[in-house]
């Protein structure tokens, strides 16, 4: 009885950890590029990625920023306070210029091919 029970527990443990591994793998696959926001700048200012990449902006500055594409339509984050993140998946090749709508002197570009 004890043996079966232990095996049962092991089986559950393995399958659950298997789930975790899969989820982690999935996460790694979709978020392929990061842009860090700090000191009123996007780093890197210009990022080149493959079509299908999800780009994640992370605000490490001590002031909120809002990531908006130049045309104000393609992508638009809500206000990102310190440590907040915003993701956008670039499916179509092209050059996407964007800026911080609260501090418009902050500009950046994602080049997708």
């Amino acid at each position, binding site marked *: 009885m004890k043996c079966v029970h232990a095996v049962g527990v092991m089986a559950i443990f393995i399958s659950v950890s298997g789930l975790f591994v899969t989820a982690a793998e999935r996460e790694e696959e979709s978020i392929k590029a990061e842009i860090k926001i700090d000191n*009123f700048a996007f780093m890197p200012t210009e990022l080149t990625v493959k079509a299908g990449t999800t780009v994640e902006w992370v605000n490490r500055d001590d002031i909120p920023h*809002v990531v908006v594409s130049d045309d104000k339509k393609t992508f638009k984050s809500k206000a990102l306070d310190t440590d907040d993140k915003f993701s956008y998946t670039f499916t179509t090749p092209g050059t996407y210029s964007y*800026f911080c709508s609260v501090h*418009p002197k902050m500009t950046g570009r994602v080049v997708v091919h």
Partner: protein
Amino acid sequence: MKAHSKAGLIYDHNHDGVDRRGFLKCMAWAGTGALCVMKAGVLRSASLSGISGATAGTAGELRFVQISDSHMGFNKPANQDVVGTLKAAVEKINALPQAPEFLLHTGDISHLSRPEEFEAVEQILKSCVAKEVFYVPGEHDVINDDGAQFLERFGKGSHGAGWRSFDKNGVHFIGLVNVMNLKAGGLGSLGTEQLEWLEGDVKGLGASTPIVVFAHIPLWNVYPQWGWGTEDSAQALGYLKRFGSVTVLNGHIHQTMQKIEGQVTFHTAASTAFPQPPPGQAQGPGPMTVPAEQLRQLLGITDVNYLRGRQALAIVDSKLG
């Protein structure tokens, strides 16, 4: 005739008219109650005690106070008690020898445009001796909703995104909004609709009417690299060229600065929340953390006094500590 001599500018490394060494020296004095004035590109400082505060009860006198950049909701190291420092500002106002008639808040009332942030500021200002407050928005007040909340709370009597004018004791006040529809790589912006309104608003006024303009982002190019300027302010100032006394009160840069150009006096107020570095003195224009005991010396209010017959308004900055 206007003289714009650059004589006296020694450390103008960026050739932008800012004498950096002189500026830094002046900023250091500002903590001890001096006023830094830039006249035709040259910095001068004057002790606050030397500036006429006017005698009480003078006929035609008008007193009001400008506060700015309360950033309600901010809680980072530069100041983890913006409620406390705003309350200290109100205490300072209430302790003035002569009560101001009203307040001007030149924007960044909230930090993240949250309803509870706007509410908190309104509540704190209720204990101010001056009951009437006129607000213009900062860029932190119009995040995510194009200023809808700002207008709902503070837009009564205003036009468009919240611009307005009103008269007090013969002085014409104009509140402008230069934080809407900002474009990538750009500065503050007034926009065609507002400029057209402004042109019509001042058209019928006599040239001897004193004008006070208040807006969030400076209407002169303090430091464009950090967004400290307004793209189309020249057009606005053009409509005011014929007036004998124009005072422009701004915020946004979280430090006091003054420039006089002919009959126009430009002045920026300190924040009640946190200081920012002088132009070009840091990587970016973000919150500047200073030792706790120094914080209140870099925050403040601005007391403005108008005496009928005097061309320039007396502007006195007071630190919170």
